[in-house]
């Protein structure tokens, strides 16, 4: 039986299959070794985006070489294969238009470098950290740990806001104060709060702008510069401090309200009490 098996394994077709398997196994092992070597030697000084691209390039190139070797062992000529594809090729080409568009869009996205892996971006109404930039799509990890897949063609034609591109940002807070308040005093209080908050940068200087006369309040724009990793800490601390300090200083943050008057602001609104009448039943 063993001899029968040996003879069976020597059949030309089986020899080819055996060689293909050897190529695939050795090729795969070699590919992993190369990837490991590159990781050990070159990884230290590279950013996540570059590491991702190099890793993908090694894998795809390795797979392509293994595939070519396999086709060679099987004595299949690529040109013949492509020629034989014929109509199938045309059909596949039409069917994969979107995919090809995504691949090309992906190349443009990478070369443009408007965002990288690890950046926090907003695409339309979706916000998340760039998890990966693949051939066909960009994957975002949302702040509540969901994975969103956005096709590259969508990315290239959408407005993308890179929230963490620059090392510092300005946090804009809208604050309304009652009309009766002393605006200079309010500005002084806001300036002092910015100076005393440890997460607010001294420079660029905070922006305190009187925006407009609102319906219920005079509105300020309070813009504080911060190092991008301190967003939550600054926001929570400064809003608490604004509330506490305004209460201590007697500065009113009014609720939205409407004042009704019958023509004279100084006279009370006339109210007439009517005797209670029993309605007809």
């Amino acid at each position, binding site marked *: 039986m063993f001899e029968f098996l040996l003879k069976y394994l020597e059949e030309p077709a089986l020899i080819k299959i055996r060689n293909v398997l050897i190529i695939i196994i050795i090729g795969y092992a070699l590919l992993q070794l190369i990837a490991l070597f590159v990781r050990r030697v070159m990884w230290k000084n590279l950013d996540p985006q570059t590491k991702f691209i190099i890793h993908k390039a090694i894998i795809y190139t390795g797979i392509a070489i293994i595939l070519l070797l396999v086709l060679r062992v099987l004595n299949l000529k690529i040109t013949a294969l492509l020629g034989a594809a014929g109509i199938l090729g045309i059909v596949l080409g039409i069917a994969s238009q979107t995919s090809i568009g995504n691949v090309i869009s992906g190349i443009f996205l990478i070369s443009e470098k408007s965002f990288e892996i690890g950046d926090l971006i907003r695409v339309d109404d979706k916000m998340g950290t760039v998890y990966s930039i693949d051939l066909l799509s960009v994957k975002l990890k949302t702040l509540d740990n969901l994975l969103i897949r956005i096709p590259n063609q969508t990315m290239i034609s959408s407005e993308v806001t890179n929230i963490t591109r*620059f*090392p*510092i940002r300005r946090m804009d807070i809208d604050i309304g104060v009652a009309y009766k308040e002393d605006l200079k005093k309010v500005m002084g209080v806001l300036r002092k709060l910015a100076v005393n908050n*440890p997460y607010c*940068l*001294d*420079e*660029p200087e905070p922006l305190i702008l009187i925006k407009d006369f609102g319906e219920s309040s005079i509105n300020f*724009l309070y813009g504080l510069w911060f*190092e991008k990793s301190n967003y939550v800490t600054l926001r929570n601390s400064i809003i608490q401090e604004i509330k506490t300090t305004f209460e201590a200083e007697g500065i009113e943050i009014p609720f939205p309200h409407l004042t009704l008057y019958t023509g004279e602001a100084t006279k009370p609104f006339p109210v007439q009490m009517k005797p209670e009448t029993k309605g007809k039943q």
Partner: protein
Amino acid sequence: MWHKYKFEENKTYSTKIGKTRLWIEKQKKIWRIASQIEEQKEFLSDGFQIIQTVPENIPWQQYVGDKNNNLQLLPNLPNQPVVIKPEIPFTIMAGMNLDIYVKIPLWIQLYSSSVKPENLLFEMSTTELSLTWFGDPTNGELAYSLQSDIIQKVPDNGSLTDEAICPINIRNDSLSILNFQRLSIDTNELNVYANQNLLCTNEVKVKFKGEEQNSEVNILHGSPAIAEGLKQIGYARSKPDKNLLRKSFYFIKSFTQY
């Protein structure tokens, strides 16, 4: 006070340097260290003393070390560049130079045995330092804003124990006047030297080469020539690059912020 201290187990020690109060306890292999910044400055020249009453709710941190009961208390400088903002901006004519002295708040470092980076147990500023940004909002560096004055000679009574005096020589090597509003110094590359009444750093020489070019910064090796008997007691966090080119001056350009 900047030396090695021996701590008995299960006893609480305290000291205050500048505005920072420190508490330390040793329990077998565990070091417990707490710190707090207080309103008033104080300088306890005796260093760590045993205290009987320990305040409640102080933020303890625990460090696992060896059975060694010694800690070395050393001064250092801030772990980020400092931005000096003179109250009255300086103007230096082309070809002229200016010697100034800047007071830099110290950081406290505690080493568990020899003074090596891997033995650094704890470090903290002796005062609250305010964060600022030096440079363009798209490309600059995070730094501490110094509110201390720029002085033009070393004080006769030396320095307080929570600050080091940094001698800086600024030379205007350009063809235009230098009117600077901000100066950034990378304190990671400075050592701390001391004699009986003065704490100071290496001397820094800055050559201004024009607004559009980086300045040449030279950190001179060894103790500065501003006093005698200076010995090194604090060690730079990183080795200085010779003739480092960096943007040391920032020229505020007015722009519409809204």
